[in-house]
């Protein structure tokens, strides 16, 4: 594997160089993006300046036959948070890029003018060329253009108009199996950094390339078989997610009275059943779409789907739980078709759905529109895509929008909007929201088997600091999984089935000829977090940035009469290990 660097600001136009992994040998995914960013990017640089770098890295096992290994990480200094960022996505590019032999593509420098470039990579090499005709194309139109130019056996990494306008909520889009730009590395604005580098699209064509070869093919095949069996036999990865997708959570979180409603004013939403995973799956199948679909080849969980409009025409992929919540109940909207349209527009413009849902809810609280007004929400999002003055404000996220409209109740940490769980109801996730190196992020501390990994030892359930300890363990374990390129949804099978976790370790060892243990995985996770934490510290972050907004400590969540109770001094111990 090698690293491809493209200096977009070189004299005479972009210059490419390829180099061996060197000091980054053995790293992949988030481990690699965070290592490169923390070592090579000046922490105090402007995120949209020449000194920032955009690092795109498949996981350690991407490009192999390993099931679920199709995540791709995108890292940079975030224009949204001002700290380090790793956002990851599914889709095809991870597998294709890894088969082309690249462990990372690093975009460096900055063009001297506003020229927009297309990068094409296949077995014969890399071509970088200007293409003015791509300017302000929406993602779906852009991909259609690429299909016309390069055929249908490609995978694309692209930005929409939001990225070109360098909005802090801009995403990097990845194409799925049907060559639709539906999978996004979205959180924290990596699309704006790609836009600042002047890159509209990276087209990957792995024709003539083979799957990556494991060191021990026999052991690798056998471990992958156990791995797939483990995923299929688990009720979450084998039944719940395939049947309903991630939005299966809507009814449950609402029942827990921790379903943020109307900009975190309430914990339940009366229209939840209209937008639940059960209703969504039925709507999809009734209209001739699908409630069970993968986002990349080699996915066995199939948590996605196809959402058709009322006339039976494709509108968007199955909208995920976070997006349904952000654009739905958080804005008081209970209409699935409106939510699906908002998801499609986010994908078209290249925007983070969580950030945009949270931002529109903040705008609604500020009186820009009424809660529950779906048409107004669509209109606001279109303003973002068109780059109107109001759209530019909204496209820079909830924190900026809250400031512009003088609002105190703005649900962000480190400038990034909170996802779909109220931290006053589920306080442990509030600890992760507050302390994550990424800003408020529900995937930073995931349900990976801390008991299996034996990170942190015994947790005392009666002590508040126990929540901090558990969050720490989860963040360490999650960082390690993010390095493998595995979809985080594997966590459930790994949580409950130690033999499935062992199958994953065996697969990594068989592929690399290593002898990794659970302890090594823990150390990998710690080293990733250490890199990220140090970067943020050098970028100026202090303990005060590891806090939830004040209103979570002052306003009770009505249904539970609870505020966020974890003390600041306990939060400050999270990175003590």
């Amino acid at each position: 594997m090698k690293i491809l660097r493209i200096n977009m600001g070189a004299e005479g136009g972009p210059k490419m160089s390829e180099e061996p992994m060197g000091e980054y040998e053995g790293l992949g995914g988030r481990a690699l993006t965070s290592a490169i960013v923390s070592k090579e990017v000046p922490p105090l640089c402007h995120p949209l300046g020449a000194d920032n770098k955009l690092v795109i890295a498949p996981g350690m096992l991407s490009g192999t036959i390993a099931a679920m290994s199709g995540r791709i990480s995108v890292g940079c200094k975030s224009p949204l948070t001002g700290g380090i960022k790793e956002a990851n996505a599914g889709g095809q590019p991870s597998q294709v890029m890894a088969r082309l032999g690249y462990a990372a593509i690093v975009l460096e420098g900055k063009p001297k003018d506003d020229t927009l470039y297309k990068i094409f990579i296949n077995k014969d090499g890399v071509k970088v060329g200007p293409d003015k005709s791509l300017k302000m194309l929406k993602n779906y139109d852009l991909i259609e253009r690429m299909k016309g130019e390069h055929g249908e056996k490609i995978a694309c990494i692209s930005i929409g108009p939001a990225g070109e306008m360098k909005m802090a909520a801009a995403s990097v889009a990845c194409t799925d199996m049907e060559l639709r730009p539906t999978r996004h590395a979205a959180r924290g604005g990596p699309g704006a950094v790609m836009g600042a580098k002047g890159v509209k699209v990276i087209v990957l064509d792995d024709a003539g390339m083979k799957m990556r070869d494991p060191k021990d093919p026999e052991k690798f095949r056998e471990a992958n078989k156990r791995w797939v069996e483990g995923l299929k036999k688990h009720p979450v990865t084998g039944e719940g997610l395939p049947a309903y997708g991630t939005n299966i959570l809507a009814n449950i979180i609402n029942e827990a009275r921790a379903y943020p409603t109307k900009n975190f004013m309430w914990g339940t939403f009366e229209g939840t059943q209209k937008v639940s995973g059960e209703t969504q799956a039925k709507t999809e199948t009734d209209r001739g779409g699908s409630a069970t679909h993968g986002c990349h080849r080699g996915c066995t969980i199939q948590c996605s789907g196809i959402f058709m409009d009322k006339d039976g025409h494709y509108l968007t992929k199955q909208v995920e739980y976070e997006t349904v919540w952000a654009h739905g109940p958080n804005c008081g909207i209970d209409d699935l078709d409106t939510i699906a349209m908002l998801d499609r527009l986010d994908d078209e413009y290249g925007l983070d759905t969580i950030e945009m849902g949270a931002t529109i809810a903040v705008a609604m609280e500020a009186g820009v529109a009424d809660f529950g007004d779906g048409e107004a929400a669509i209109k606001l999002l279109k303003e973002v895509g068109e780059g109107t003055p109001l759209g530019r404000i909204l496209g820079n996220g909830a924190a900026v929008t809250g400031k512009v409209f003088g609002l105190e109740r703005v649900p962000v940490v480190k400038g990034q909007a909170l996802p779909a769980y109220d931290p006053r109801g589920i306080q442990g996730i509030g600890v992760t929201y507050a302390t994550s190196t990424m800003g408020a992020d529900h995937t930073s501390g995931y349900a990976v088997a801390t008991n299996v990994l034996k990170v942190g030892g015994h947790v005392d359930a009666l002590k508040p600091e126990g929540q901090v300890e558990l969050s720490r363990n989860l963040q360490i374990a999650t960082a390690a999984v993010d390095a493998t390129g595995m979809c985080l949804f594997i966590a459930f099978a790994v949580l409950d089935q130690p033999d499935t976790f062992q199958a994953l370790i065996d697969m990594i060892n068989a592929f690399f000829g290593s002898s990794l243990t659970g302890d090594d995985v823990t150390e990998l996770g710690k080293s990733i977090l250490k890199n990220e934490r140090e970067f943020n510290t050098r970028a100026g972050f202090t303990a005060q940035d590891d806090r939830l907004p004040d209103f979570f400590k002052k306003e009770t969540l009505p249904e539970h009469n609870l505020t966020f109770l974890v003390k600041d001094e306990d939060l400050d111990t999270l990175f003590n290990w």
Partner: protein
Amino acid sequence: MTLDPDKIQGFFPLLQCGFMVKVRIGCSIKTMLCEQFGLNPEYVEDRIQTIFLDGKTVDDIDSAIIKDGSTLALSAAMPGLVGATLRRGGHLALLRSGITHRGGRKSVSRREGMVVLKLFNLVGNELGPTFLKRGIFVRREDLEGLLMSLPGEFWGGCKAATVDGQEVGLDHLLGMTWLDNYDFAMLRVHGDL
């Protein structure tokens, strides 16, 4: 109503909205599920992994007591950190300790009462036919809304309908305004080949 078995799922949306059933209150969740509803204890243990009683997450189904008017929601295991956190027991339960059901402290007399039951996702699919056959009380507007939304192909699989003991034709059923006088209706649905 008597339907082709594959049409029963047309009524599943009612399960997530919540319906009422008559039960003997003052017992534990486990007693109600296994002894009153006749569910297999293994099914309850293995499949019903996520339980809420009056909005609180339940870990111990032996100590959580059903009261008159309680709302009980049942679900399979859920994805995500929060989904795993809300599951019964386990080391992640700490993360939501503020909303955990603390068990029954006051004794509740054992007598007949009503509870609201919500069946979500896989649990709804699997237990729905049993409860629909047994009979559920549903809110008038929920039932009306559902009947109006069912497509023509659903009604093609409807073999018979009875209202207050009187057999009625489907046209009659769909055109009726009988629900206007009631807040609730009791619905029984049978699958028949």
